[in-house]
């Protein structure tokens, strides 16, 4: 099935970091009046990056040439209202989008240190209407695009206000935008977050996805075939991620009216997540000393993947197997990086073969969780076929999973100055794209990250990202069982006193319109009758 990639914003179908755009700037605006708002959007529209496939060899100004910096735009409910979208249309937007992230805190588990009272000032004191992201290859390209946009703001004569109030390093609390970037090691950008885990591995693969067809392995929905091959997977329906297309329920998703406003658009979650690096390292050091497998295996059991290589622990259960894999992966990546201007076929194939192994698995040979614990992060956020509990009981193994997938488009932010401390300003700008924020992002956050019943784990939470609480003595109450092997003599290991490693520092829900809808919004021609 083909979709009109020229009509779809590029950030929906492309994770820019994988296309050599390692840095981003997220800027937020407030619309003071409708006319200025529409004029601003009209000025932005020609700058917006679409989903058309890029040709690296195209001439710099060709339509399919990768731009020096990308630009994408999205709106909150209040933003759409300020642009004059008629009430009849506004009333067709989903409840959670209308409410916004702050009012959904009880659903999302944003309590204690994650409570909106502690969020960056921009999310507390102002009303965010509009989000613009600029992803770039280097800071200069980002700055150039930022200046172009700032010029449009100046032209609005006060009709558009760029909102400041982002916290930054050095205790600043009033930065004018949020910066984000891949983390660099020896001058090379790494797909890694501040706890040291390799990130950005699991990416849903749907009908309109681009990239190597092997990405369906582990990225699509499970069939009853061999998970190590393409036969074990099928692409998800496009409607899980883009409105107006068929979804996994064999219908077009519930969407705002008129249809042309929603078609080729989607919803986005923006969330600034602080990482308590000091607490995390201390826990690994302390508990890792008593854990028979040691600190690195403990970190792997938390996530379901080895920190340094990203190799799935269910497939590479021992240090030795993981290290061999990591060595091969590093070689393949170094070669690909060295040949990045004109990579050879062999270099690409060697890398794809290893990359595929990182995703080519399910949990059917690990039902009791002795390799990958039942409560490990990746097993929670994408259980693959595991909710069948090995019984081949459902219509399809992914029956309870296929409609809970999200596209992740975020980047790390900040730098860790002292890895024994929690303070500072560093973490992940989590960006999720999905057709339904409540069915996809919120469900995963509530039921699979902050709760455990679907995995038969009572109230246990995700060890890494769960909102672990404290008892009456302010001692952390997070817990996790690392299941042992009941047929061998390997005992379960009990992790207790897990503190909250990740805290929410702000965010909101956004609507990403198609290019067509963007023109309708800027011209004020949205009419649901």
């Amino acid at each position, binding site marked *: 099935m083909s979709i009109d990639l020229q009509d779809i914003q590029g950030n929906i179908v492309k994770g820019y970091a994988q296309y050599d755009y390692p840095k981003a700037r997220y800027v937020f605006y407030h619309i003071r009046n409708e006319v200025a708002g529409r004029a601003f959007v009209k000025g932005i529209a020609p700058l917006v990056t679409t989903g058309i496939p890029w040709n690296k060899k195209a001439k710099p100004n060709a339509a399919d040439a990768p731009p020096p910096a990308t630009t994408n735009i999205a709106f909150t409910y209040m933003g759409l209202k300020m642009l004059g979208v008629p009430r009849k249309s506004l009333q067709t937007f989903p409840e959670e989008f209308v409410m916004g992230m702050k009012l959904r805190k009880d659903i999302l588990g944003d309590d204690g240190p994650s409570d909106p009272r502690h969020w960056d000032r921009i999310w507390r004191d102002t009303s965010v209407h509009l989000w613009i992201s600029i992803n770039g290859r280097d800071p200069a390209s980002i700055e150039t695009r930022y200046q172009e946009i700032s010029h449009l703001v100046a032209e609005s004569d006060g009709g558009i206000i760029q909102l400041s109030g982002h916290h930054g390093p050095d205790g600043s609390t009033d930065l004018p935008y949020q910066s984000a970037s891949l983390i660099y090691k020896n001058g090379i950008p790494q797909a890694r977050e501040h706890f040291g885990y390799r990130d950005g591995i699991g990416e849903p693969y749907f009908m309109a996805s681009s990239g190597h067809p092997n990405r369906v392995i582990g990225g699509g929905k499970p069939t009853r075939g061999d998970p190590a091959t393409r036969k074990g997977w099928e692409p998800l329906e496009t409607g899980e991620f883009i409105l107006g297309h068929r979804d996994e329920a064999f219908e077009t998703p519930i969407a705002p009216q008129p249809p042309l406003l929603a078609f080729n658009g989607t919803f986005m979650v923006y969330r600034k997540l602080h990482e308590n690096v000091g607490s995390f390292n201390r826990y690994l050091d302390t508990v890792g000393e008593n854990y028979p497998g040691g600190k690195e295996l403990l970190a792997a059991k938390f996530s379901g993947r080895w920190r340094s290589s990203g190799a799935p622990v269910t497939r590479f259960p021992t240090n030795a197997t993981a290290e061999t894999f990591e060595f091969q992966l590093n070689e393949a990546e170094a070669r690909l990086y060295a040949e990045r201007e004109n990579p050879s076929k062999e270099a690409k194939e060697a890398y794809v073969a290893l990359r595929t192994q990182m995703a080519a698995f399910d949990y059917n040979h690990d039902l009791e969780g002795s390799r990958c614990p039942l409560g490990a992060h990746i097993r929670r956020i994408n259980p693959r076929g595991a909710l069948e509990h090995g019984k081949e*009981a459902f219509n399809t193994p992914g029956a309870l999973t296929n409609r809970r997938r999200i596209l992740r488009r975020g980047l790390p932010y900040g730098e860790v100055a002292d890895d024994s401390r929690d303070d500072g300003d560093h973490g992940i700008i989590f960006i999720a794209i999905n057709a339904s924020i409540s069915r996809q992002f919120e469900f995963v956050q509530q039921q699979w990250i902050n709760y455990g019943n679907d995995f038969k784990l009572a109230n246990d939470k995700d060890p890494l990202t769960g909102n672990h609480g404290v008892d009456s003595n302010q001692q952390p109450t997070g817990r996790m069982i690392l299941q042992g092997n009941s047929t061998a003599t390997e005992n*379960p290991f009990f992790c207790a006193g897990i503190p909250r490693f990740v805290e929410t520092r702000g965010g909101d829900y956004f609507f990403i319109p198609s290019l067509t809808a963007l023109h309708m919004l800027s011209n004020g021609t949205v009419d649901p009758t």
Partner: protein
Amino acid sequence: MSNIAGKAYAMNVVTPAKWYWVWVNKLFFWFVQLPGGAAYLKGLLTLSLIHYARWAIVSPKEFPHLDESQPKEKLKYSYMFFFSNFNGSWDQYVDSFHAAIPQGLDLFWFKNVKYPKSVPLQPFHAYITYNQIWTSHYYSAYPLATSNDIKSARHLTRELRAFSESSARADPLEFHEAYQRLLRDVQQDISIMERTPIVSLSAQAVEQRLDQADAERADQ
């Protein structure tokens, strides 16, 4: 009035069916209760969020007529009563049925009036919503327990009792080994029950108002 108590949701759905079709549904329900028929319920039984689900078909003349003061009714249809208690939200439950056992649902509700089939989802949602009877009173004695928790607790109790009997006179080494074995046997059954996540903001608001009213009454 709420369909939610603790971690459980109570759903009642009453759907009409033409009397001359319900023998098919009855045949199907009879069949799945045969020893070999359970295989057809595997999907339903694997949906671990369900406390229980029950279907009952009532023909027009089976409706009770209590005494003369009750007006006589002329019923045109047989009715299928579906009752279920489950953990999680309405959406999670209905969507799980729809995705996991669509063919099974279409047999259960075979030929029920205006049953749209379980796939696609939006008409199925509308059908269930239209025919659902809200619960006027719902009480949960164990508001922290899900169906999975209860199963785990029962297994844990059984194993622990057996262990304490069998190991009562074990020497330290035997005891140690038996204890380790016990741990491995019950590793899927140990956790802590806490309050439910808030699956519905409106249900949460109702609960808070009722708690507030209770507190005020207690003050008086």
